[in-house]
């Protein structure tokens, strides 16, 4: 029978088959933008998951093809229009038993490797390094408790790209200002928690997803078998910028990792030194503009206009133009009057004295405000208690 005849007689079959299976086989997997499977695994856990997934997909596909071969054969052959007369059988206890037991056995065969993989993934013992991850609205914080290093990691994609004013770069929405740096070849134990709402830390190539829940400490382990940059995203709806708090992990050699730790410690020392000196208004404004954009603009808006009913505007606000101490305390300790549905978190633990001083100076001399006030880090420090 010619192809055209087949297509004419069985439009249903052809379109169904094409739709259902064509996606799998017709599109070459070589096109990265038409990726059909997981990203390339770089840890033993991710590798195990990929193998398990591939095995299960194949089993499911085989079952699917066999079952629907029966159905489609029946659709073609057992038609009234073909003159087929209906049989009247309507039960078969043996058959029911068979097609209960066989699927059950198939499930058991899937459950065994799945159990093994899960058990392997849960063993966080004998790790070389511990890193703490905290999810914030809307950024991640990474702390290395043993090395006394800690920092925030925020989306680095410029607002202009998101608002379609400039062209988007290659790692649009998957780039941060300070990536998480880890050494290759070492077993790293991660502990995860949340600061405000539930987030989830997910890096597909590491094969890891774990919820960051306030009040809980979850854990998992990772061993990066190769150097490289691996990107992920928050995987639990956490508010308006849930799609804008990516994760970037940079795996480097153990030597480079030690060098990076040393550099981080130096920078931290420089930061606290900066807290003691006196800053000029211009220095504060430059630093404050950047810090505002990275931390405050998410809620208060890039021009300080807020969102009606949800986040207050800073342009002309009582707090930003009123008593200075009130302003500082608001940023440090948060605020919830009930007038707006959202609650302002306390930024005391998230921002340094220098950052807060710079942000407040910026807020009081920009965004439509002209108070002329200049805030020094020492003033912020004094109000921290």
């Amino acid at each position: 029978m010619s192809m055209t005849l087949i297509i004419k007689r069985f439009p249903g079959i052809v379109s169904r088959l094409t739709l259902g299976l064509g996606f799998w086989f017709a599109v070459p997997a070589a096109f990265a933008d038409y990726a059909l499977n997981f990203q390339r695994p770089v840890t033993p856990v991710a590798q195990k998951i990929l193998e398990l997934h591939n095995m299960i997909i194949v089993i499911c596909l085989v079952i699917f093809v066999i079952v629907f071969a029966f159905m489609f054969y029946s659709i073609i052959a057992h038609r009234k229009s073909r003159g087929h007369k209906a049989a009247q059988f309507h039960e078969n206890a043996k058959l029911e038993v068979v097609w209960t037991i066989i699927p059950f056995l198939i499930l058991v065969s899937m459950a065994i490797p799945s159990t093994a993989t899960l058990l392997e993934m849960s063993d966080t013992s004998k790790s070389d390094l511990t890193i703490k991850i905290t999810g914030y609205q809307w950024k991640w914080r990474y702390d290395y408790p043993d090395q006394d290093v800690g920092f925030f990691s925020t989306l680095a994609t410029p607002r202009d790209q998101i608002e379609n004013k400039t062209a988007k770069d290659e790692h649009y929405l998957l780039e941060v200002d300070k990536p998480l740096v880890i050494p290759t070849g070492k077993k790293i134990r991660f502990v995860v928690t949340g600061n405000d709402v539930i987030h989830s830390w997910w890096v597909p190539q590491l094969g890891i997803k774990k919820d960051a829940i306030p009040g809980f400490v979850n854990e998992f382990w990772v061993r990066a078998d190769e150097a490289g940059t691996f990107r992920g995203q928050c995987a639990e709806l956490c508010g308006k910028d849930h799609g804008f708090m990516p994760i970037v992990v940079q795996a480097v050699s153990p030597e480079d990792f030690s060098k990076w730790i040393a550099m981080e410690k130096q920078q931290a020392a420089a930061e606290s030194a900066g807290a003691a000196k006196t800053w000029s208004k211009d220095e504060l404004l430059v630093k404050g503009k950047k810090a505002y954009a990275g931390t405050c603009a998410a809620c208060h808006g890039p021009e300080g206009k807020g969102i009606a009913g949800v986040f207050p505007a800073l342009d002309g606000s009582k707090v930003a133009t009123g008593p200075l101490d009130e302003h500082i305390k608001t940023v440090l300790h948060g605020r919830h009057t009930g007038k707006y549905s959202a609650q302002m978190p306390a930024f005391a633990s998230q921002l340094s004295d220098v950052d807060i001083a710079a942000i407040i100076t910026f807020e009081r001399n920009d965004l439509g405000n002209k108070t002329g006030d200049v805030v020094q880090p020492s003033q912020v420090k004094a109000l921290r208690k």
Partner: protein
Amino acid sequence: MATAHHHAEHPTGLSRWLFTTNHKDIGTLYLVFAFIMAIVGGLMSLVIRSELWKPGLQIVDPLFFNEMTTVHALVMIFGFAMPAFVGLANWQIPMMIGAPDMALPRMNNWSFWILPFAATLLISSLFMPGGGPSGGWTLYPPLSVQGGMGTDFTLLSIHLLGMSSILGSINIIATILNMRAPGMTLMKMPMFAWTWLITAFLLIAAMPVLAGAVTMLITDRHFGTHFFDAAAGGDPVLWQHVFWFFGHPEVYILVLPAFGVFSQVIPTFARKPLFGYDSMVYATASIAFLSFIVWAHHMYTVGMPMAGELFFMYATMLIAVPTGVKVFNWISTMWRGSMTFETPMLWAVGGVFTFTIGGLSGLMCAITPADFQYQDTYFVVAHFHYVIFGATIYGLFAAIYFWLPKWTGHMYNETLGKWHFWLTTIGFNLTFFPQHFLGLAGMPRRIPDYALQFTEFNQWSTVGAFFTIASQLIFFYVAFKTMKGGAKATEKVWDGADGLEWTLPSPPPYHSFAVAPKVK
């Protein structure tokens, strides 16, 4: 029972619809309401898919986008799918079991009329200061504690919706258990009645749990409790356990009545009895029982102890067994039948096919370590749309085309019905099949903007969404035309039709089976 009362004339006008206690009228009310909500929910999905056409924020801001994903789900589940099937239950169950009406007709009226108020609360939440709920239909705290007044409107709406479902379910159980015609034992009643009987028990067990959870959220938000606030000794994960204890039976509530429809339609158009009736009953009951012990497969990444993760993985995988049995029985019903493929049969067979794709992706999600890659990605979004659309929506259309000639006395336009089926099928698959790949490639769900590599599949999905929604215009046209007129429908309507409803005139009298038929 009643004396020989003559119901006055067949009531008319606004008061007919406000005060009716007639199961056929109430069935119509539910169906009309459901399809209005389907339009609302469908439009929201177009807002979502429009924003996701390409990377960048073009149309809406992220907060409103989250309101759309949240309210779209609530509207579709509670405003469309559930009321539509209660509408089918109302129209069909009394006729199929030879009863004159539902057991509690006045409560039946109230069960429906709660819904427009609930829907008003839900939709108006979008217009409240601060906007509607934006933490997902799953309302996880602490995020849902942050929402404004819109969230409170939604929580109260959910209370009303739940009440309507519970009352409706009590009615269905009382009707089926007490009012079957003499001779119709439970194991002789139509599968649609069986699946609704079991679903009604699921509803009675699960909806109060949701009500409890929602109440705890209300008190956490306004009355000083800290059920879900870790800083005060509470537990955000408690919400997830309680919600999903409702949530998992809920999804079986969504599909079981549709399975009942498949079990009515396929034998009719195969001209062959349903294969394995007893097994089908036991399989449905097994699914219902198992649905209560699998809830935490929605929570594999929260950090449960290993024993929990393994238990829920095994229990979830087990559900594939009775579900598979049902699929095999439907195919065996077709096997060696004498099939024709009118529109209801297309929807039923297409529904089995589509649901099975979703069932297999669900089996993949059941595997805990693999789920670490699927959870909260578009893979899950693809999975649940395949099962809900495949079973519930295909089942709904199968039922409507199947029974519309009985309800209206007119045959619908068969050509247009087929067009509706094929265009919807193409559109639906174009919308959701690529989403499997988006999830595998790493795209999370509930995000308004995405990394560049996800663009192509998102665009296919958006085109599919507009195509699918547009295709529903055919359905509305067909339905309206059929209600107004068309070729006269016979009593039996379909060559292979079997069951008490097919012994009544088309359309049936306002009150049917005032005298119970005898069933051998």
